[in-house]
């Protein structure tokens, strides 16, 4: 890679690294794996950088590399298939917690950790990155129909999640309670 391209890549990393790390964290559930995932995805992007002509498409490219890399890790069983959450970042509701919905968010967070990796990635891309179904499909390398069914199954699992029912049954909104009736 020549110096100009290297500087261009450095600028991209500087501008996007925090956002990528946040997305990776939501996909993996812990900081160490998130850093590992972002570094690996960006390293692969670094190697491909001279061949990537459409700079506007870089974000989508990196997201796809992140998803594929995580899938690859899962296949190799080098990383845990269940997602360990950083305890330091857990937001257990405390007495007097100012957040009225803290219990529900906490239960949802742990329920997300129990989703299969692809469902979790789809949920993160749709509900955190707020990508369209088409953009999510591109990032996951699947059709939009598959995105719809994947997200639908993920939401059903969240509604059915035993931990969610137990932890936050008192605060479940109507649409979450519906599956329990």
């Amino acid at each position, binding site marked *: 890679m020549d110096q100009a391209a*290297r500087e261009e*890549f*450095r600028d991209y*990393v*500087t501008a996007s*690294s*925090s956002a990528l*790390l*946040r*997305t990776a*964290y*939501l996909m993996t559930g812990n*900081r*160490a794996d*998130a*850093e*590992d995932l*972002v*570094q*690996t995805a*960006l*390293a*692969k992007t*670094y*190697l491909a950088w001279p061949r990537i002509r459409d700079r506007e498409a870089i974000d989508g490219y990196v997201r796809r590399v992140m998803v594929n890399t995580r899938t690859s890790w899962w296949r190799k069983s080098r990383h845990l298939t269940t997602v360990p959450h950083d305890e330091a*970042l857990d*937001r257990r509701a405390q007495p007097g917690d100012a957040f009225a*919905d803290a219990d*529900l*968010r906490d239960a*949802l*967070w742990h329920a*997300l950790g129990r989703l299969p990796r692809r469902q979790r990635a789809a*949920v*993160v891309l749709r*509900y*955190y990155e*707020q990508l369209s179904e088409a953009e999510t499909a591109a990032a996951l390398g699947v059709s939009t129909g598959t995105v719809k069914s994947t997200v639908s199954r993920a*939401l059903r699992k*969240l*509604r059915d999640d035993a931990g969610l029912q137990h932890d936050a049954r008192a605060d479940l*909104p*109507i*649409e*979450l309670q519906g599956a329990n009736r």
Partner: protein
Amino acid sequence: MSPLDSHLHDTLTQHAADVGAPVDLFGAVERRARTLRRRRVAVATAGTAAVAAVAVVGGLTLTGGGDNDTLRAPIAHAGSGTPSATSPSPAASASATPSPVTTATGQPAASTNYPMSWPRVPDAAVAWVDWPAVQRSMAGQLPAGFDPPQHLRPLAVFDTDAGAATVFVAASGGRTVAGAVLQAAPTAAVAVHDIDAAAAQVSAIVRVAASGGAVDDGLVVAAPTAGQILVQQPGQTTYSPVPGSNARTATITLGRVVPGQPVAQIKVLDGNGDTDKPLYQGPIGVGYTFPDV
């Protein structure tokens, strides 16, 4: 947006907000990219008997347990066989990195038999090493008070940017010393240091001049009774297994090691999955901070 959509978005946003910014991500990415590239090359060339000539200038440094016993054995241009001179500074900047912690390992005391306890690689893997020449080269580098090295025992062969390299241990009187040799300079490229009886790892730094500046590869072999090697690069907050490494050997892409600046920290576990206690934790190079690189 339904209430569930809203709760999901809020939950994800809330947790994402707790994630701080990464530190020196670009440096870490470049190091990892080089590791990936090297691994792809290694995979692409696996199964072939041909060994490509290394057309770079390689310098090899092996750092030891203290300032006084660190020696440097520069490697000449590939094929020249003539080491070039370097002038190491005596002023190590130990303050830049935390002191290493080595705990008792239960290994035998240093003796002439001690190198024999390390598992060796097959002779065929290191057939390119001119062992008599390496032995002479090593003897010439040992400080006063060290006996001529014997029982040279190769521990692992690494694929570095300077080509194949092997790390070995040898007996020097009652001590165990370690060295490394590159295939590009199989007779003269030796560096040594003293390792104490409880050493949990032997490490070497291979430096290669490249178009974008010098880069360093760290080679680490854990002691026979030790377990997995973990690494924490500067800027990282946690230790992680070295990607693609075996349990007891690791090639770590260090990028450019700068005097006085933090270097990669390594942690050698005890090999007991129930405890995973670190036998060694500290900078790569056994606590030395590269005073003159």
